[in-house]
């Protein structure tokens, strides 16, 4: 009893982390001359994926219950467009619009959650409707690309940089200037979301109910858990975190377009799956999902650093990785059954 044996889920998590490390280290070796070893490259991966990290946290929570949410990309697009048009054309202050984005996310999640939890409609269908609605609303607000230029607050937040403490990873560039690696505020927001989600999933009644509901809905009900409420809350949580993700996203891109975050829901799902979350529910962990995001980000970054490869390659590699992890999960599942 003292010695904790690893179960298959933690093995999968270790594999995901190991894969990331191998991928990153080989990138460092292969592209050392192109500066891949710099800490800033890693931080930029975080920067470019800050929104996705928030989304994947919510997605993981929903997937643990056995559900799915394909509306997240569209929701981001809608909220970004709302903010951009609000600031630029309606002349509203960003300080009021930012919290309003979170409220929109909450309401959006509550409607979806009500249909899924209390009316027991398939999550796929409900969130597909949500996706069409949000994408449609984005275009209703504006069909143009709206760049955010008028808001001082937004510009400030977007360009706000935090240097690494103690100048870790600092280097001097060709002009002899000292460069200290830095992160933007939205990277910090995303990491806070990640930590909070981790704690919620692991240490709260709600978090544990998610796992129980995903493991066996009937059992969870018989053990006295409120299954409907749990699923409702999971979807509210997902849409809310997605809205935080939307803020990160818009701070990074500083614009709203109808094609914003197109296919982001699939990136989130694939990251979660690579990170060891089962589509069938009951198993998952935001740490894994986080590394799933990092793996996808590293692939993109490697292709970009290479400079010659087509930008379509990351998709192909992601597909292969997905297959690899799904097959692995299936093997583990079968192995466990035999036990």
């Amino acid at each position: 009893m003292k010695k904790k044996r690893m179960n298959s889920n933690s093995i999968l998590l270790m594999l995901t982390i190991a894969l990331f490390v191998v991928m990153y280290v080989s990138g460092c070796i292969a592209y050392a001359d192109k500066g891949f070893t710099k800490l800033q490259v890693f931080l930029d991966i975080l920067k470019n994926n800050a929104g996705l990290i928030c989304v994947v946290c919510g997605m993981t929570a929903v997937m643990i219950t056995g559900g799915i949410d394909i509306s997240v990309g569209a929701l981001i697009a809608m909220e970004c467009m709302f903010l951009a048009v609000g600031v630029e054309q309606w002349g509203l202050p960003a300080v009021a619009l930012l919290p309003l984005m979170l409220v929109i996310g909450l309401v959006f999640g509550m409607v979806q959650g009500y249909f899924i939890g209390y009316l027991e409609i398939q999550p796929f269908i409900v969130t597909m409707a949500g996706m069409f609605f949000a994408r449609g609303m984005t275009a209703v607000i504006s069909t143009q690309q709206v760049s955010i230029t008028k808001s001082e607050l937004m510009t400030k937040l977007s360009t706000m940089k935090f240097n690494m403490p103690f100048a870790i990873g600092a280097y001097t560039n060709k002009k002899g200037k000292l460069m200290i690696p830095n992160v933007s505020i939205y990277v910090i927001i995303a990491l806070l979301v990640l930590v909070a989600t981790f704690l919620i999933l692991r240490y709260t009644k709600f978090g544990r109910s998610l796992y129980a509901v995903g493991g066996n809905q009937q059992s969870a009900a018989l053990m006295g858990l409120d299954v409907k409420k749990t699923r409702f809350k999971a979807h509210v949580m997902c849409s809310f975190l997605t809205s935080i993700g939307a803020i990160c996203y818009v701070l990074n891109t500083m614009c709203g377009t109808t094609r914003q975050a197109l296919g982001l829901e699939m990136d989130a799902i694939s990251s979660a799956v690579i990170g060891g979350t089962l589509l069938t529910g009951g198993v998952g962990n935001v740490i894994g999902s986080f590394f799933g995001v990092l793996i996808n980000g590293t692939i993109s970054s490697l292709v970009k650093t290479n400079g010659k490869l087509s930008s379509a390659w990351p998709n192909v590699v992601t597909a292969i990785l997905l297959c690899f992890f799904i097959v692995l999960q299936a093997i583990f599942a079968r192995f466990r059954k035999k036990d």
Partner: protein
Amino acid sequence: MTFPGVKALDHVDFTLRKGEIHALMGENGAGKSTLIKCLTGVNNFEAGEIHIDGISEAVRNRNTLDAQKHGISTVYQEVNLCPNLSVAENLFIGREPMTKLHTVNRKEMVKRAQKLMNEMNLPVDVTRNLDEYSLALQQMIAIARAVDMECKVLILDEPTSSLDDSEVEKLFNLMRQLRDRGVGIIFVTHFLEQVYAVCDRITVLRNGQLVGEYPIAELPRVKLIAAMMGKDFDDLASIKPEGGLHGGTESLIDAQGLSHAGKIKPFDLTLARGEVIGLTGLLGSGRSELARAIYGADKAQTGTLRVKGKEVHIKHPIDAMNLGMGMLPDDRKAEGIIGDLSVRENIILAMQARRGMTKLIPMKEQEEIADHFIELLQIKTASRETPVKQLSGGNQQKVIIARWLATDPDFLILDEPTRGIDVGTKTEIQKLVIKLAQEGKGIVFISSEIEEMLRTCNRLAVLRDGAKVGELSGEMTQELVMKTIAEG
């Protein structure tokens, strides 16, 4: 506790005393599950009252949660826990110990869970996932959860169905331990031996009515079976089997030591041409399982099977079909009939499967075959193209029989072919079975009604608790059958 007059059950009174193990017995449809569902709040009841601890105020459970609050916990055959969570979490989910910050106190939870497991002598590491343990242990963990929730009444619904003998013994020890602590246990099972091994008292239900409540010592096995089947043992009229069927010399089937783990223990069975052999026993005694082992629906794991003198290995039903077997499953809705297809298509199905899907039977031939059997079996249908789901139950049954007859089998297994159909059609099917035997086919006949078996079969194999315990032929009477079921 008393529950007088549960209406769905037609005025059944049931009393469970503190610190006893009380068996609830009855054949299928006797009302055991309904009674339990009323107790646990899954079903509502229209009349009657539930009293707990002798308190005069009646309790009404609206759902399982309610029942748990009143101290009534149920453990089902299917373990109702979450396989993906740790044992500790399964024990405490929904009522986790909390820290001051309102988060789950995992350390405390693990500590308490391990203490609980140690108290019950379960060799379990509570930090491991539930699905790393055997079904038996999972079941005991489920019981532990119920016990820790301070249940006064523990309902065990068919808990032993998927356990092996040593696991059952462990479960019984746990049950006795709990009984000594003052927990009242309701034990539902169809394994007779287990009732006598562990219970203090038996309540028998039949057709939704109370037959009686007996201390275990006053109800020997034979009387219990008589009570369940609704035959007053002493007044049983002896009926001689009708129609002298005699097995031919050619052996169609010779099974030696066939078995399928957890379903049917090794058995021998022979069947000659022109014979109708009946498989009898209480529900769940392994009647269907025996047939399925021969037919390859559950691949036999031990033993040898000879068909027409030649040793064969049947891996899938298609092998059996190619050897000239046919099987009518007991659940015709789920396994047999395809409601949206026409009578003709349903009849042709097995024949087509045997030929291979690429060699399509010409439409003309299909129509001829369908018409032939509609006529022969007097299937009442508007036309041969009518969807089968529009036919009555008895006629659907005939369509399936026709399906197998179309393949011209030497050997047919009929599992409950007369269940749920009216008396007239029943007799027709019984006659048909005898007629087929007289034409030289071998038939295995399974039915819950002993009279029917005696009327149609010339030999009976008796099963109990998943094992063949005897074989009867010649002068067979209901008393004899019941005695064999009871005593082997």
